[in-house]
């Protein structure tokens, strides 16, 4: 049996070194753009000062119900797609899937949402990494967009690979900075490579100093198998954003744990970003 070491400090140190505490705050929907087929890109207001401290890989927990209804009961976690400290806003990419997301994706502009965040740890770019490979599956595109923004601002090179069911469900190029190399794969071959996004990964493994991935579990499985033969001494390192059902988002309920080589960890506080090789899959 692995002994738990509950986290004592939920303080998060933002990019600028500022300490950002998770807060429960009211957020207004400022814009809703349809994107990637039936998904919605929501632009949300943030409390003053928060946008600049958000880090790529972090998420927020949104209450997806009207006042007076307790169903659905729990919040839903969404990765931060982009944050803008000038307008004090952030964006979330929401795919209507079940009860919570269908509600959220169809909210009209000006809806006030109850948001808890920022939550979780962040992707970590090593100071000496020059070339970064992003591997996105579906709405897993979200946190990798913010990571791409930050990496480019630091003068690094980014290749962004994305997979989706068909051309419609891909993130349009216009949502990515122009100096990114964008490679795509679709299940039906309607755009780019016909097959899995992970099929495209091996050819970049020599180039990349680090790999960052977000998508469904099967994508991670296939990422592990296609990359194993091409990685030497575990290089390049691969960071992944894992998805678990969450209740509290703050490390209190122990509902979202991930088994790692360092023991049971709460993916809402000690994750959702993990070194792929440290997770016991």
């Amino acid at each position: 049996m692995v002994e738990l070491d509950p986290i004592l400090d939920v303080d998060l140190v933002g990019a600028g070194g500022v300490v950002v505490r998770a807060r429960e705050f009211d957020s207004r929907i400022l814009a809703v753009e349809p994107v990637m087929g039936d998904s919605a890109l929501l632009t949300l207001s943030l409390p003053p000062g928060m946008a600049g401290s958000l880090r790529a890989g972090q998420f927020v927990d949104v209450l997806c119900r009207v006042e007076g209804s307790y169903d659905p009961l729990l919040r839903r976690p969404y990765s931060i797609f982009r944050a803008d400290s000038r307008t004090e806003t952030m964006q979330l990419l929401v795919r209507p899937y079940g009860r919570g997301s269908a509600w959220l994706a169809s909210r009209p502009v000006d809806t006030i949402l109850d948001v808890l965040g920022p939550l979780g740890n962040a992707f970590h770019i090593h100071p000496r990494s020059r070339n970064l490979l992003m591997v996105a599956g579906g709405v897993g595109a979200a946190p990798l967009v913010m990571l791409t923004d930050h990496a480019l601002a630091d003068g690094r090179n980014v290749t962004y690979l994305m997979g989706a069911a068909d051309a419609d469900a891909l993130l349009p190029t216009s949502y990515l900075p122009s100096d990114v190399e964008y490679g795509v794969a679709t299940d039906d071959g309607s755009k780019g490579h016909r097959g899995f996004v992970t099929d495209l990964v091996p050819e970049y493994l020599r180039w990349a100093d680090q790999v960052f991935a977000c998508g469904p579990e099967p994508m991670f499985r296939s990422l592990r198998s296609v990359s194993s033969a091409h990685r030497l001494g575990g290089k390049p390192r691969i960071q992944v954003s894992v998805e678990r059902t969450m209740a509290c988002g703050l490390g209190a309920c122990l509902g979202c744990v991930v088994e790692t080589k360092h023991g049971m960890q709460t993916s809402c506080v000690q994750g959702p970003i993990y070194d792929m090789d440290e997770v016991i899959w």
Partner: protein
Amino acid sequence: MAAPSLAVDLAPGNPRELVLANPVIAASGCFGYGLEYAGVMDVQRLGAFVSKGITPKPRSGNRMPRITETPAGMLNAIGLQNPGIRGFVKKYPKIWDAWKVPAIVNISAESVEDYAMMARILDELPGVAGIEVNISCPNIAAGGYCFGWDAAMSADVTRAVRAATTLPMMVKLSPGAVDVVSVALAVEDAGADAVSMINTLVGMAIDVRTRRPVLANATGGLSGPAVKPIALRMVYQVAAAVQIPVVGMGGIMGLDDALEFFFAGASAVQVGTAVFAQPGMLIRLIDDLGEWLSSQGVGSVQEIVGAALPAGLPSRRAATEADVEIDFAAAVAAG
């Protein structure tokens, strides 16, 4: 008018007493060790909080998935992941000792001896204000039959803990008992300072795609607004029968729910699942309660406790009136 009094003593019969500044308590398993929520709210303002269930040995808990949502509720099968009593003792009480808010330790075990062993360790520990004894655990000696389903087994645990510590002790009743009133009377008689209720009801969800239980553990504990009517009924029955304070919980989401529990006879309330959905609610509830009491011209929250009970609270009745027969009718559905 003076601000209404929110204070309550949950161990009036115990010289070590358990006085809370207000009757709002964060429930076990939903508030970690108090530290997790320290960033998002002023934890020191709570009446008290109860720790995650501590067991004799460290436990890594159940496999994943451990939680799933249900209509107006949730199922959890965390499996009591915790560092064990020894790991716990090294870490948390010394932090809590510097805190204003009373910390109550929830203990779970599979034998009477193990409950007593943990109580002995906690007895004189600075930082620990009280114990909550979780009896919704399988009794290994009884083939896994749950302690809390049986009045005699529940009393055994209570007596053993009472013998091991003078700390204020709250026994947490299981809703799985066929007759929760008998269990409550038995633990009162065995020396509990208070009873808290209810723990989760056992439920299940099945994944329609895989055709298998959603939770790795198959079954889990149901909590949240869905269970509130059941919890409230049990509090109403038990509060009509015992003389010690009853701490009510199960689906409390805000002031109106808490008031229902006070009226049903709860001297204080615990809030679990709601904290996940709206952490800010806990502090809001304390404020709302104070304002509501003022608006109603009520001087103390204890004045409204048991208002819905036809004969009032036993502890406030004359001794001769207190012998109430168990009324099964209240627990038989009349469709």
